């Protein structure tokens, strides 16, 4: 059975043109042209047809915290947000630090509504003490390693991981990506929001921006020493962005992501004392938000990620210190990029699709131009449709969106994952 997306404007890395897109049974684009008709026709008029989004940073909570999210529900939220691939963080229970858990995540991901790419921890148990079996994991195709949720504190261990990773390039077929959650815990421990005017006034102990910046600085130095590929996760401070800009100018193999919340919210939101605004790294200042937007605009930051972090209502209905950090992101990401990043649509698509696809080594099947023969991982988005955010209405069993009640512009109408229409007219098909 063939599927045709009709009447949309295709926007991809090759530019913009009005085209119908036909998708065949093999999950690939069979032809593009005008006045195409298939067994199933989906209306894309007034919409943008783009390569599906790629999220480099998602917490799917499975195995371990299935009450907050599962791979199935997370992938449904992802598909509703226009994502065709989610890169799953390894802070599961048990930690994804060995072949068995990677295999489990892959098996669960096989039935998901979009592709699930497991990452693995850099250190055993994410404890920052012993290197994870990176060679074995690379042989399984794992290409991104991260202790996300925490940074590797010990600079000596980090140096060894970076050196070791450079020896695995040939086995993986590309350089291994080490993704760091930059946070020097000696400076951040006991802090629950950004340290500054607001934390001082609210009496909430803060985490200084320098907790992030010192590790960004350290890892840039270690990249210079080792030549490893370092991907900086969720950059949130002006100085972090400036340092990554400098490292790129010096030709170092570094990449970076920023989350939607770090360019759309500030620490002032914590004045409600609602832990729905508690996240690591914390929401920062107006100046930091401006710097993140500038970093997205000038290419310093390569990708918009969500750091989608579901937590049950129960766990967020606690005091600010006791509640876990993190917020939902998959279903609001595109709208926030459109409204808050200050970027044009083609730049947003680059940051949400083909540039992160390249970092994750997925460029053969995600973020690819909409031309015949390529994998049909696509989303159809209506940039003008407005909608009102409701955590309860989201696919996740959790509802911890910091944008509750906000009316946003830009909505995903259809999502095609490996040729299958998983979202049609804004509804998940399974």
């Amino acid at each position, binding site marked *: 059975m063939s599927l045709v997306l009709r009447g949309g404007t295709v926007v991809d890395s090759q530019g913009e043109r009005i085209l119908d897109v036909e998708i065949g049974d093999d999950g690939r684009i069979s032809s593009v042209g005008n006045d195409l008709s298939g067994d199933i026709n989906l209306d894309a008029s007034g919409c943008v047809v783009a390569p599906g989004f790629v999220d480099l940073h998602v917490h799917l909570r499975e195995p371990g915290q299935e009450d907050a999210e599962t791979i199935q529900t997370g992938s449904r939220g992802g598909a509703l947000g226009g994502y065709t691939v989610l890169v799953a963080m390894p802070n599961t229970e048990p930690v994804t630090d060995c072949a068995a858990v990677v295999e489990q995540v892959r098996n669960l991901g096989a039935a998901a509504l979009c592709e699930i790419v497991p990452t693995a921890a850099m250190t055993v148990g994410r404890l920052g003490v012993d290197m994870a079996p990176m060679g074995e994991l690379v042989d399984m195709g794992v290409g991104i390693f991260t202790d996300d949720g925490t940074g590797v504190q010990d600079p000596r261990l980090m140096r060894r991981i970076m050196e070791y990773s450079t020896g695995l390039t040939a086995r993986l077929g590309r350089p291994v990506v080490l993704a760091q959650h930059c946070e020097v815990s000696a400076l951040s421990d006991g802090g629950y929001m950004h*340290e*500054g*005017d607001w*934390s*001082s006034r*609210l*009496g*909430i*102990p*803060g985490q*200084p921006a320098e907790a992030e910046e010192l590790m960004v600085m350290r890892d840039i130095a270690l990249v210079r020493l080792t030549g490893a590929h370092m991907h900086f996760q969720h950059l949130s401070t002006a100085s972090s962005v400036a340092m990554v800009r400098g490292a790129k100018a010096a030709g170092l193999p570094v990449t970076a992501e920023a989350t939607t919340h770090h360019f759309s919210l500030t620490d002032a939101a914590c004045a*409600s*004392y*609602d832990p729905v605004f508690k996240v690591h790294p914390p929401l920062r200042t107006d100046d930091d938000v401006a710097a993140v937007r500038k970093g997205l605009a000038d290419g310093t930051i390569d990708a918009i990620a969500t750091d989608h972090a579901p937590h049950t209502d*129960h*766990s967020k*209905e*606690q*005091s*600010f*210190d*006791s509640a876990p950090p993190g917020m939902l992101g998959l279903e609001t990401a595109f709208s926030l990029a459109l409204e808050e990043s200050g970027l044009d649509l083609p730049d947003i698509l680059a940051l949400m699709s083909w540039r992160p696809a390249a970092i994750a080594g997925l460029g053969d099947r995600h973020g690819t131009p909409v031309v015949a023969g390529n994998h049909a991982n696509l989303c159809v988005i209506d940039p003008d449709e407005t909608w009102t955010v409701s955590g309860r209405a989201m696919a996740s069993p959790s509802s911890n969106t910091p944008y509750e009640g906000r009316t946003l512009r830009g909505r995903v109408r259809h999502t095609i994952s490996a040729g299958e229409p998983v979202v049609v007219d804004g509804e998940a098909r399974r």
Partner: protein
Amino acid sequence: MSTAVTTWRHLLGIDGMSRGDIEGILDLTDTFAEVGRRSIPKVPALRGRTVASLFFEDSTRTRMSFETAAKRLSADIMTFTAGSSSLSKGESLRDTVEVIGSYGADAIVVRHAMAGTAHRLADWTDACVINAGDGCHEHPTQALLDCYTLRERRGDLDGMRIGIVGDIRNSRVARSNILAFSLLGAEVVLVAPPTLLPPSIDGWPVTVSHDLDAVLPGLDACYLLRMQRERINEGLVPSLREYATDYGMDARRGGLLAADAVILHPGPTNPGVELTTEVATDPRSVILDQVSNGVSVRMAVLFMLLGSGMDLAPDQSGADQGVDG
């Protein structure tokens, strides 16, 4: 400055209050101070009302002060010893508060080690929430009793210069008092090493000094904060000895203060650290007045939130205080 008295459902902090709000409570406190001086210091003002005290953090003084206040108003008292009981079993804060609400509490007096917890509770309950200290944020009844004590001693806070000395960074007492003293027209100077100051005081109505000796002669009141021993382990000051040397109030420093100055401390004191025993018993020290005024202020607050329209004292002329708020 506004003198309008706001109608409050909760008492969460001094932040958001007007000068008129504070003065209204202080005026009402006079009435309850009088009740406290009677041979039977009890009125039926809150008979039939239930006050729940929910202390997640240990506090003997504040809890006893609130419970004494509630008893003098004839309210029933329900005590929830949070400690680690149900919360350690995984119950959420919201569950706990909803349970207390379903027992029929009309007011919940809450103390918690984390800022903002009283504010969260207020979102989840129909009861009046009274913040009895939330982390490093606010302790509004302490500020009110301090203002009352200063007013009692000096008549008026307008134009006073008040020094707050010590661990301002971690102090809810300091945050509430900075706001309250400023609202009432006093000038506030913070005296502490940089490590005991908040990370940012941009926009705060204060000046800062690291030299207590230089500040003391110009003060009308000196507020000494409690110095927790934990601050030494956190590396905020080298030792209690060095803290006492630089920021402790002893007889020599007492001599630098004006003869009519007032010395305050929220208690409990660490003798020999924030102040010497000699200073604590100096005629200028009002530390015990603070304790007794605490009961009167908390009676006023409970009455204000729960007793609207009720007879304050059937056998007295206290009901004409105009307290509909």
